[in-house]
């Protein structure tokens, strides 16, 4: 098996960078850890779950989807760059890697999204098995696991009490990456550490069933009281993908942008007539939960939540989706008694 010392991840990053990869890794950022583009000297930290997902490296916060040159009242389409550099993302949590399936579906179910597909093709995901979980993690409640390999091209398994990492390729891209790692990774023996224990927090299927029969329930207003209608949860979420199309222009050129957007904001569904199908935070929260646990399953066959727990970690209003699902599960059980 291929192994490396756990404190040699920077060497791995350097080797991959030398082989032409743009390297993204969990980096120390003040008191937190963020998935960021690695540069020599950056400190990699695989302890805490990174505050952000890897979404932004495949689906940027803002990107050009059309461009025009302007001359008076006339315009002409212009070509533009959609960068899709060869990328290696190291130490991706299994909850983030498994989110790829949901986004692949959205961006390919009928119309094929060129930028998404180009970046997917150019990116090698190297997962990291979680040997620790916190109170916000809930991958096991949504069909995931701390050592799941879905979406990953290779996987790093902490071993020998965290001192070593076993690097295992899961396919062609993984093979290429392992080869590029060169001497940083050596043949050796190590005993993989146990993955974290992540208790199941709620019954996702039962929650979806309850939702289907309780669209008008007053519980939606109660569980969403803490929500202040920002986009923090949607933007840190590995599966949230809603976006806005906006034009921006100077006198001589205009761009059509695709920007991250969220159903949590009041304007998301507002009609030009002034009518808003989701006029309050309660209906918007109902949409959030049902989209991820019910509608997405109905349309694409999989959940649009991977249990990463980020929403719970960052929301100032206490609106962890796991918490809301727990409350629904409890309400359901209370009625069933």
């Amino acid at each position, binding site marked *: 098996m291929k192994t490396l010392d756990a404190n040699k991840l920077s060497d791995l990053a350097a080797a991959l960078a030398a082989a032409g990869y743009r390297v993204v890794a969990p980096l120390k950022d003040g008191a937190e850890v963020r998935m960021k583009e690695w540069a020599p000297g950056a400190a990699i930290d695989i302890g805490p779950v990174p505050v952000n997902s890897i979404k932004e490296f495949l689906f940027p916060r803002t990107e050009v989807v059309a461009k025009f040159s*302007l001359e008076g009242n006339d315009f002409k389409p212009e070509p533009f760059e959609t960068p899709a550099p060869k990328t290696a993302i190291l130490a991706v949590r299994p909850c983030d890697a498994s989110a790829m399936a949901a986004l692949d579906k959205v961006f390919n179910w009928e119309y094929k999204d060129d930028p998404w597909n180009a970046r997917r093709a150019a990116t090698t995901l190297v997962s990291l098995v979680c040997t620790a979980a916190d109170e916000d993690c809930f991958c096991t409640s949504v069909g995931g696991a701390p050592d799941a390999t879905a979406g990953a091209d290779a996987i790093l398994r902490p071993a020998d009490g965290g001192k070593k990492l076993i690097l295992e390729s899961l396919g062609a891209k993984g093979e290429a990456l392992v080869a590029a790692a060169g001497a940083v990774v050596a043949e050796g023996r190590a005993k993989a550490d146990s993955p974290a224990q992540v208790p199941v927090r709620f019954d996702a299927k039962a929650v979806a069933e309850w939702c289907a029969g309780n669209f008008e329930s007053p519980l939606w207003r109660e569980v969403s009281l803490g929500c202040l209608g920002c986009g923090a949860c949607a933007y840190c979420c590995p599966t949230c993908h809603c*976006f806005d199309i906006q034009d921006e222009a100077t006198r001589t050129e205009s761009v059509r942008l695709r920007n991250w957007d969220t159903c949590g904001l009041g304007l998301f569904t507002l009609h030009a007539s002034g009518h808003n199908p989701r006029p309050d935070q309660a209906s918007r929260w109902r949409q959030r939960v*049902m989209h991820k646990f019910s509608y997405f399953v109905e349309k694409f066959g999989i959940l649009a939540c991977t249990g990463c727990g980020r929403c719970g970690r960052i929301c100032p209003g206490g609106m962890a989706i796991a918490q809301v699902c727990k409350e629904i599960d409890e309400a359901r059980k209370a009625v069933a008694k």
Partner: protein
Amino acid sequence: MTVATYQTAMMKIVTARDEAPDVRTFRLQFADEPDRARFFEKYRVGMFGLYGVPGAGESTFCVASPPTRTEYIECTFRKTGRVTAALRDRELGQAITFRGPYGNSFPIETWKGRNILFIAGGIALPPMRSVIWNVLDRRKEFGDVTILYGARTVADLVYKDELAEWGGREDVRLVTTVDPGGETADWKGQIGFVPTVLEQTAPASANTLAVVCGPPIMIKFTLPVLTKLGFGPKDVYTTLENRMKCGVGQCGRCNVGSVYVCRDGPVFTLDQIKHMPTTDM
């Protein structure tokens, strides 16, 4: 590179006509023949497009002309905000961007031999107009054609010339109405809300399908009347409008339940809508 999904065709404005205060109809021609050919290969009645002005943005309107007329497309829109204002400012001969056709269509082939009841309100006549002309352009294939159209006031009625044309035809029954208080001194049509006039007109439901387009409030009160008149949920068609941006089933804005209005719609039967979580339409 270009991103295929957002690539636009260039359309020249060949005519512009004001229908009502703030409501304008454009007749547009594709600047490039391959774009035109590609469009008409796919276009079926009911589909929509995204019309845009670079720098201002894109807006979603149905294609208001039928697929039986392949030299141009038409759209009718009301000026309500940034993009529609920019569109309205475009002059004859100037260009706008277009991408489409998107969405599903009315299954007009299955309507052959049947009677058709068209019900529309206000600015919702445009999506209906393409179907009406599609049917009228192939008149012999269909049974009785009844059109019930109402607006808030006489000034708000769109396609006034065409209304007169439809009304003058022997093979069309036209009923027009304005809301109480919306009539002018010389108004010769009905006075009353569309659902009320529908109930009074009481068209027969036997072998008839209904196509309904209008603001949410009109739909809400019209559908029960249709049920009362004996129309089954599979025989009532409507278009769901929702805020749209990408038009291709990805951005999530137009989601209603597991349905993307831009892909699985905008045309739905009442039967389909009954199973969607629309608290109001």
